[in-house]
């Protein structure tokens, strides 16, 4: 398939994932399929309690081949690493591909908000970005996913019937008309395919 044309594929650089209720299991399903030398950076916003410890990062790191860590202020975003937004801060991405943070008010009742990181990722990565909305009881992420689409990035939503809570995927599908609606089991393998085509 790929030898029929010269390399004009869109080379994706980063994946941003938004998840809420039920997100931990969904993230585990997707990330466990990705290899340790995965060629893209993965950035996750998961709604969680503001005083939570680093359990999510630790457990995902144990269960996945990629390195999973909490994003740090001014940290350079590397490929092959999964970054999780810290609790109680909004996460943003700067033009030089480093993280920055903000404690401005909640957006869609959430801090970190999926919309905030998606929008700033769309600014920086443009068409080299993949945005994914997973399970959740909220509408956060819909506007951000729209921004990713407008900037030429690829948009994916977990099919609502495979989501633990369908509200967030349903809201995203309605707002964006995403490029792909995939069952949870298929998202990871689809990302591997995109990586090898890149």
């Amino acid at each position, binding site marked *: 398939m790929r030898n029929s044309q010269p390399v004009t594929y869109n080379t994706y650089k980063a994946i941003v994932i938004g998840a809420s209720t039920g997100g931990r299991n969904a993230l585990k399903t997707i990330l466990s399929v990705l290899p340790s030398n995965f060629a893209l950076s993965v950035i996750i916003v998961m709604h969680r309690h503001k*005083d939570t410890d680093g359990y999510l990062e630790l457990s995902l790191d144990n269960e996945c081949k990629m390195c999973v860590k909490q994003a*740090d*202020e*001014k940290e350079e975003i590397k490929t092959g690493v999964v970054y999780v937004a*810290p609790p*109680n*801060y*909004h996460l*943003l*991405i*700067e*033009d030089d591909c480093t993280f*920055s*943070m*903000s*404690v*401005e*008010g909640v957006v869609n009742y959430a801090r970190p908000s999926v919309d*905030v990181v998606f*929008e*700033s990722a769309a*600014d*920086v990565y443009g068409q080299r970005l993949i945005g994914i909305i997973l399970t959740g009881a909220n509408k956060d992420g819909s506007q951000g996913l729209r921004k990713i689409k*407008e*900037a*030429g990035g690829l948009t994916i939503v977990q099919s609502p019937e495979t989501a633990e809570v369908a509200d967030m995927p349903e809201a995203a599908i309605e707002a964006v008309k995403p490029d792909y609606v995939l069952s949870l089991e298929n998202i990871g393998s689809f990302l591997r395919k995109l990586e090898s085509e890149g």
Partner: protein
Amino acid sequence: MEITNENEEIEFDLLLQAIYQKYGYDFRNYARASLKRRIRYRLSQSNFKTISEMQHKLLYDSKFFATLLSDLTINVTEMFRDPSFFKALREVVIPELKKQPFIKVWHAGCSSGEEVYSTAILLKEEGLYRTSLIYATDADDVVLDKAKSGVFAIDRMKDYTLNYRKAGGLASFADYYTARYDNAIMDNSLKKNIVFSNHNLVTDGVFGEMDMIICRNVFIYFNRDLQDRVFRLFSESLRPGGFLCLGTKETIRFSSFSDDFENVTDHEKIYRKKNDEF
């Protein structure tokens, strides 16, 4: 799409330059992504089509600038925000401060003052308030006035009470304020040794020989260069052995001043300035 983005970058730079030259507030070395978001928000709430149109308004209408300024300065804070930090302050830093006959604390970028009153309560409970002086500074007079008034929304007190307890509070939080209608008015005795004043970390200088500087969730808005400037300012404003307290996600470790400070705790961002002879 590309042209729109390119123009927006130019307009963005020009706007920050205009704000600086006209009003003296220097946001040019702030982290961009968050600023961009807030300027876009103001644009979306206005009738202007571009940032350039908004810039024109800004130059000729100081009231409009005041609105934008309050968008650009994040003033989200709470009492005993991050209780574990205040707990560490009480357990680890206070015993050291007790060795001093007199204590000078600088709350830099204090916003509307919630954390200043938290520190005042902590010092009071530890028997140190009478011999302490707290300098509370911010670059924004509007929030500084609010801090001075010591009046906060009553509906936040439930959360603050919870924070206070988690932070190891020794009394009942309700003892520190009087409820009146929708307001909680902080006890006047807490204000006695607080000096509120305008100070801009970006453009102003050193602030005395402090025993402790608390500046939490301010550095996250600065770029590397500006962070270094302010770390230098803090290093020069602290006595040897003085404490520097930052927000949970902030660190001095990537700055040029890392070697001047040692870690005080593993989990909180509390640093101690080394003595010169070390």
